[in-house]
Each structure stands twice: as structure tokens, then as C-alpha cells.
């Protein structure tokens, strides 16, 4: 039975050193892995730049007062603008916000302030996640069957209202989730303090809890609006499209996203150009809203 003598200190320092040796196999593998991760990060960022550059160049050079204020030309003609589509996007998104924000904030308040941790709140939160995962085109099909095909609004089929409602279905999960999660962050002591000085539940929620959670809620709402403004799929067979100025809430309405879709696949150069111009305006609005949301969450955190 032989006992191997433990290695002496000098034997260790001969083979192992505390100095970094870049030639070691594991260090070389490390360098390779670093490079791969860096390449992947670059690959992930490149499409953004490519898309932005093309939208800025192709769309930006068309930017003029005429573009923002005139109607699109008839197929085959030159000139014209996307004024009706800009207005339409604002109208439809506004309708969606007016529905989704009150409903969503109310639902979020219930989940965070009132609900016991029972089956109902579990079901609503689960349903909210499922609703967030429903493809946007299905929202369009749903609103088409519910509102457009049944002609529920004054015997009108396609309408700005139907488009707005379809978008609100899409926005709702975001608003509920951000409200719920925002309210959960409000310290319990604030609610107790309010009850302690004799405030009712209603007053506590509207005067204390909701204002305290304003930042996360506003951030989520702005992001939800930005996402809704760029959505196309729920609008193609609810709001449809219109080459004219908006004619009230119960008629078809042009939106920038549907205009881009329609004009991109037309074989006319002038229409393709307008699609790029509309992309420019839309991307600018949406990126602006995203930066605004970011600013809200940074500026008011302090």
C-alpha cells in the first residue's frame, strides 16, 4: 500500500500560477464564446439600423406639407399625401384608448386592491395572459363577426368604431397587467395610513394608491398605445380603408398601417413611395411614444 506524498508548494507553483494565462484551453474557449456572444448582439441590433435607415431615407425625403395634408392619389396618378391616414390613425387609436384605459385600469384596481387570492382573480389573471397571446388577426376576425357582419352600429358595416374596438381588445391586457403590477408595488403602509386618517376605500384608491402607481401605469399605457397605433391585422377588415377624409365614426376610415399594407403591394411607384412616407411618420410617432414612456419612468422615479 503506497501513499502518494502530497505535492509540495513548489510543485504547485511550477504548474499553476495565479497569473492569467491567455493560452490556456479554457481561456481560449472563453475568448471564442465572448466573440460569439458579441457577434450575436451585433446581429440583433443590425436589423433595427437597416430598417430605420431605409425608412428615414426612403420616407424622409418625401416629407412635405403636402404629404401631411393631402389625400392619397388615385392609382396611377402622382403626388398626393397621407393626411387622411394620419388623422385616421389618431382617431382609431383614440377610440381604442378611451375604451381600454378605463376598463384596464379598473380591472387592474380590482385585481390588486379588492380581489382575494381565489379562483376568480386567478382566472382573470390567467385569462389576461391568454388574451395577450391571442393573435391580432383573430381580434380582427372576432370584431368582424361581432360588429361588422352584424351591422350593429346604425346598419353600418366597416367603421372607425369597429377598428377602435378591435384595437382596444389588443390593448386591454397590457393596461391591466401594468396597472396590477404597478399597484402591487405601492407600499401597504400608504393604504394603512389613508385608512388610519379615516379615508374610505374609494378615496384611498383614487387619491393615494393610483397616484402613487402613476409612473408604471403611465409607462405601460403609453407603450400600449404605441403598439396599437402600429397594428394592422385587426384593422384590415374592421376599419377597412378609405381614400377620403374621415366621415364620422361609423364609416370606414383610412389608417397609416393599412395604407402601408395596401400601397406596398400595389404595382404603382407613387403608391409605394407613399407607403414609405407613411412608414416614416408612423415609426417616428411610435419611437417617440416609446422614448416618452422611457422618459416618464426615469423622470418620475427620482
Amino acid at each position, binding site marked *: 500500500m503506497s501513499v502518494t506524498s502530497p505535492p509540495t508548494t513548489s510543485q504547485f507553483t511550477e504548474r499553476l500560477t495565479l497569473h492569467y494565462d491567455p493560452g490556456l484551453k*479554457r*481561456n481560449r474557449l*472563453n475568448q471564442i464564446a*465572448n466573440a460569439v*456572444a*458579441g457577434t*450575436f*448582439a451585433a*446581429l*440583433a*441590433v443590425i*436589423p*433595427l439600423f*437597416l*430598417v430605420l435607415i*431605409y*425608412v428615414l431615407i*426612403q420616407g424622409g425625403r418625401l416629407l412635405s406639407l403636402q404629404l401631411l395634408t393631402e389625400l392619397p392619389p388615385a392609382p396611377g396618378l402622382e403626388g398626393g399625401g397621407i393626411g387622411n391616414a394620419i388623422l385616421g390613425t389618431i382617431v382609431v387609436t383614440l377610440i381604442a384608448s378611451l375604451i381600454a384605459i378605463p*376598463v384596464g385600469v*379598473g*380591472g387592474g*384596481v*380590482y*385585481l390588486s386592491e*379588492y380581489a382575494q387570492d381565489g379562483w376568480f*382573480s386567478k382566472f*382573470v389573471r390567467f*385569462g389576461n395572459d*391568454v388574451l395577450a*397571446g*391571442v*393573435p*391580432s*388577426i*383573430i381580434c*380582427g*376576425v372576432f370584431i*368582424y*363577426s*361581432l360588429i361588422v357582419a352584424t351591422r350593429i352600429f346604425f346598419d353600418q358595416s366597416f367603421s372607425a368604431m369597429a377598428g377602435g374596438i378591435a384595437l382596444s*381588445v389588443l390593448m*386591454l*391586457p397590457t393596461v391591466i397587467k401594468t396597472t396590477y403590477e404597478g399597484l402591487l408595488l405601492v407600499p401597504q403602509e400608504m393604504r394603512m395610513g389613508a385608512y388610519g386618517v*379615516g379615508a*374610505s*376605500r*374609494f378615496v384611498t384608491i383614487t387619491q393615494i394608491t393610483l397616484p402613487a402607481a402613476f409612473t408604471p401605469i403611465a409607462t405601460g399605457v403609453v407603450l400600449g398605445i404605441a403598439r396599437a*397605433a*402600429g397594428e394592422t391585422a385587426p384593422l*384590415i377588415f374592421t376599419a*377597412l380603408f378609405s381614400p377620403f377624409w374621415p366621415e364620422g365614426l361609423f364609416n370606414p376610415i383610412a389608417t397609416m*398601417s393599412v395604407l*402601408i*399594407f395596401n400601397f*406596398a403591394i400595389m404595382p404603382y411607384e407613387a403608391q*409605394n413611395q407613399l407607403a414609405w412616407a407613411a412608414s416614416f411618420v408612423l*415609426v417616428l410617432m*411610435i*419611437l417617440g411614444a*416609446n422614448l416618452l414612456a422611457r422618459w416618464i419612468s426615469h423622470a418620475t422615479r427620482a
Partner: protein
Amino acid sequence: MRSAPPIDAFTLRRRPPQEKLTDIGFRQLTLVLAASVGIILLAIFVTVFTGAREAMATFGLRFLTTSAWDPVNEQYGALIAIYGTLVTAVLSLLIAVPIGLGTAIFITEDLLPRSLRDVIGLLVELLAAIPSVVLGLWAIFVMEPAIRPFLSLLHTTLGWTPFFSTEPQGPGTAPAILILVVMVLPIITAISRDALNQVPIELRQGAYGVGTTRWGAIFNVILPAAVSSIMGGVMLSLGRAMGETMAVTMIIGNSLNFSLSLLAPGNTIASMLANQFGEADGIQVSALMYAAVVLMILTFVVNVLAQWIVRRLSLRY
């Protein structure tokens, strides 16, 4: 100076009736608003199912396995669209997951100064904000012409396999897969980044303390600790990729002929709906609704699976 009004400290204030009423009314209102989520979800299922009933009765399960889409003879089968939906979604994830995960690792495991990492994170998030219809426009006019030489090369070198057997001619499944990669990449990156950030610092310190390298720690400690959230994120992205409509519709070619080739035009359920739903009538509407039901079930299963994975797979550390 006014003297303070006398306070009877030990008298309980009776709550005025309108205060009670507001309280109860507000509670009931928010309850109804919260319930609206369930009602909307239920309404979506009911509406689409009732719309599809006629086609379900006529075509039965044959609908899922036949590929005829013939409005003239009123024969419908969704095989092409179902195949296209699954192929585009799965292949795009196969490309996007390594890239997204690599990016997430790159911006969480301090390889770079924090300010630079935050910029990369911001850029990836902004990519998610670009509307899919704009990506579709870009795909038609910029991306597809740019990658066509590469796709042609694929065809000449790998043309003997059925997957590259056709000459690339503009719109097709391959460009659609690439644009889907661009769309799901930000989701995977964002979720993986959150998952990696939530791994407790002690785990990292422990790993480095026993002398491992950075990537030893990442592969053996950090990734296994975050795997449940990352898998959940991957499943969510899969659902998103299957339901994605606009960019795919604009670039996939919307073919009604079945082809195994990725270079040939294809179709997905969502793009079929976007293209035909507005102009369809009669049983075609019902057939499209049937396809919508299939899509809804697919995304529902994937989403529920995602939530289940996050809850079940989470390691206890």
C-alpha cells in the same frame, strides 16, 4: 385667533350613506371591468367557433390533412397553411433563440461597460416597437432583393434536397422566416435578459469562487438557474411567431400550392385570413373561421404550456 372646534375624541363617526354607496359601487364597477377580460376571451372563442361550425360539419378533420383550397368547387383544406404556420414559426425560433440568448448574455454578464450594455438593450427593445407592417414593407423592397443571391446559392448547392428544390423568385417562405426572426428576437432577448438578471448574485459569486471561467459559470450555473423563464419566453415567442400576420403576409407569397421547398412561396393561417377574409363569402368564411380556430388552439396550447413551464421547471436555489 380662532379656537379649535371641540373634538369629541371618542365618538365614532358614522359613515355617510353616499360614502358607503360610492365604496360599494366602485368595488362592483371594478369587479365588472375585471370580469370583462374573461367575457371578451369567452366571446372570442364562442364567436370564432360558431363561425366555424358549418365548415367543421362539412369538412370534419379532413380539413386538417387536405390541401385543396378551391372556392369554385367549395373544397377547403388547410394543410398548406397549417404546415406553413408551424414551419415558419419553428425555423424562425431555431435561428432567433441562439441569437437572442447570446445577446441577452452579452448584455447581462458584464462583458461591457454598463452604459454600452444599456444602449444595446434599448436598441433591441426599440426593434420590438417597429410595426410589423413596416417590417413587411422593408422586407419586400430591401431585404428580399438583398438576400436573393444567397438563396440562389442555397438552391444551387443544396438544390438536391426537397427543402431547397425551387429557384427563389421573390416572395417565399425563407424571407418570411427571416423577417419572423427579426420580430421574435426582441421578445426572446428581453425575457432572457430579465431571467438572467434575476439569478441571485450568490450563485455567480460561488461559481467564480471555485475558480470557473466566465463561460463555465454561464453554462453550468447561470443558464440552468434561469432555464425555466427562458423556456417560457421561447414558448411565448413561438405563439407570437405563429400568430404574426402582416410582415409574413407581405413576404410569404400566399401560395395555394403545397411545396416542401423553403424557397417557394408558402402560406400561413394568419396570412390566409388577412388575404381572404375581407372578400370571402358563403362557406369560405366558415372555412377561414375553421382555420382561425386551429390557429387559436395552437397559440392557446403554446401559451398555456409557456406558463406551465415557468411554474414547473423553476429550480429552487
